[in-house]
């Protein structure tokens, strides 16, 4: 069986990751490749375009109407963690974990848990053999970099020194927390949480440890998957987004992930920078000149931002024009990719 191609779109919040992911997915599917777009929190408009039912996240992909062999799915973190637990724990422990009130807390709030769930879900979809290409819109947590760190962080948490120290050396014994060397901390933890809550948490963490073997093996597989994925970092010309994009390029190589391209979204035409408006003297001409001067200044800033980040990062850059109307259907999404400079070759390469 051929490994599916994995495309990961990452970047700061508000740069258009979800729309770009959907557009890339639509374009790849148009070439006939069986494609899946996995998104995290799609806006209603985009969800409608992709035919995703937002209310019921089941992690079950559904075909996108009118988009050829394209499926879409919205990640449901809690459902993912239930599946992860069922996969990696003994049935009895899995039931106890899923029924535990802290289970949801872990799924919802551990910084790495949402991202890990996304990674494990991608691995599941990749293994199924149902798709040639999987396009992943990364979760927004910590600017998306969490997505790439999550496998090792979860492995560290569940199998790590801290949990062993908290819950005792042996797995089968319960309530070991009160017999460990952790006494000074226990007094603190007890003052903070109260002994009843502390005991419940300790029991829960003990159960969580039993996931370790399965989770460690899977985390390594997710790391490999990310290592061979095409990672596209999206940005706009806002300083925050550019800073965030720069961080991906310094951090990802440390995780053995190499970004394939930078997608610069909301690009303004360079022609506006030097263009002169109409010379006429009537008020309409004056209005046109004034407006062009404003947007010319903005286009210059936009171009300088592109030049700066290209010089800094030394990587192929894709530019996506600032669209007057955001795409709201399958055709609009495909048009967006067609209008982008440098995106079609990536789509062709991925679609094989």
């Amino acid at each position, binding site marked *: 069986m051929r490994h599916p191609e994995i495309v990961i779109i990452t970047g*700061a*919040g*508000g*740069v258009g990751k979800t729309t770009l992911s959907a557009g890339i997915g639509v374009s790849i599917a148009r070439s006939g490749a069986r494609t899946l777009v996995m998104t995290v929190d799609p*806006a*209603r*408009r985009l969800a409608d375009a992709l035919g995703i039912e937002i209310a019921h996240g089941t992690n079950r992909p559904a075909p996108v109407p009118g988009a050829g062999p394209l499926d879409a799915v919205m990640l449901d973190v809690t459902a993912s963690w239930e599946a992860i637990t069922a996969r990696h724990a003994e049935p009895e422990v899995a039931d106890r974990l899923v029924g535990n009130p*802290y289970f*949801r*807390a*872990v799924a*919802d*709030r*551990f*910084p790495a848990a949402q991202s890990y769930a996304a990674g494990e879900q991608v691995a599941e979809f990749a293994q199924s053999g149902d798709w040639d290409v999987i396009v992943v819109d990364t979760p*927004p947590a*910590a*600017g998306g970099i969490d997505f790439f760190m999550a496998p090792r962080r979860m492995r560290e*948490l569940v199998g790590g020194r*801290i949990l062993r*120290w*908290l819950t005792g050396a042996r797995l089968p014994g319960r309530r070991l927390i009160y017999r460990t060397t*952790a006494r*000074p*901390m226990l007094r*603190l*933890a007890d*003052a*903070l*949480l*109260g002994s*009843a*809550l*502390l005991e419940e*948490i300790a029991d*829960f*963490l003990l159960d969580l440890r039993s996931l370790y073997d399965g989770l460690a093996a899977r985390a390594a597989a997710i790391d490999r998957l990310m290592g061979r994925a095409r990672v596209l970092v999206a940005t*706009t010309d806002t*300083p*925050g987004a550019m800073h965030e994009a720069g961080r991906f390029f310094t951090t990802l190589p440390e995780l053995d992930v190499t970004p394939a391209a930078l997608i610069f979204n909301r690009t303004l*035409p360079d*022609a*506006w920078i030097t*263009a002169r*408006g*109409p010379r006429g003297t009537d008020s*309409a001409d004056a*209005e*046109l*000149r004034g*407006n*062009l001067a*404003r*947007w010319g*200044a*903005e286009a210059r*800033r936009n171009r*300088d931002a592109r030049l700066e980040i290209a010089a800094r990062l030394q990587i192929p850059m894709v530019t996506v024009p600032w669209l*007057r*109307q955001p795409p709201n259907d399958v055709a609009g999404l495909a048009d967006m990719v067609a209008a982008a400079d440098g995106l079609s070759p990536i789509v062709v390469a991925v679609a094989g």
Partner: protein
Amino acid sequence: MAPAIASLGMVLDRSLVIVSGKGGVGKSAVTVALALRAQRTGRRVLVAALTNGIGAAAHLGAERLAYEPATFHGEIQAMLVDRAAALDEYLRVQLRAPAAAPTRTLSKAMQVLVDTAPGIREVISMGKPIFDMWQGEYDLVIVDAPPIGQLMSYLRAPAVVAGLVPTGAVRNQAGRMAAALEDPEQAALLLVMTPEELPAIETRRAIDDLEVEPLVAIGGIVANRVLPPLELTARDIAHLPNRPAAAAAAHHLALLETQTTVLADFPEATPLPYLFGVRTPAEVSVHLADAWEDMV
């Protein structure tokens, strides 16, 4: 009953202003602009970043923020609410943990415990700026908060903790914290949006959520990056020979159309101008503060 949304000048009279909105709308820029506005009226201001602090730092013209407040942009104090540091301080100050520096293992173990119990982490992190407000060293504490979805879990945390921990210091603090947040004389939420479809949807959702759960009063809505009007119609530019001028006008008109539709739904929003060609984040916040001042 629709939540009363105060006029924007009023947020400056509060002791705590939380700034939030969808990702990418300019929360940090507005946070710093508000801080500049308040500082110009002689108030002692602390900016507390509840995010990674990158945006607030850039708009203050700083490299980065630290847990220890430092002075930027004149007289504004700013800090990063680092989760681990906030917990360590909490344990030391509130629970009188031994003054000797906690070992790394102990500190990390506490982090895991606190992450597992719902609500505790949020109460401790959000508690830091509120604690600073109580200390009275500042007239106004402005929180550069995470996007609104995440902020809701901070705002709900005191109730979660109250339901979870029967007694003790954290529960008491959570109660005081909820009371402070709910008191419209003390605390206000400033929602930042841009006149675009998605930010408008998120802002509406936040207003609706807070109507059901009045966890904090909405002190105002800022519509950031509002475009100036253009005295042209699509007809005027339909047959223009000058292509860039026509294209720029068409671009502007299309954005204006969305803007007009969106702003019609938010008549209470205070507009801040789109800053054409302004380069550095520090300049952006100064320009926004100036624009704000001109309006009042």
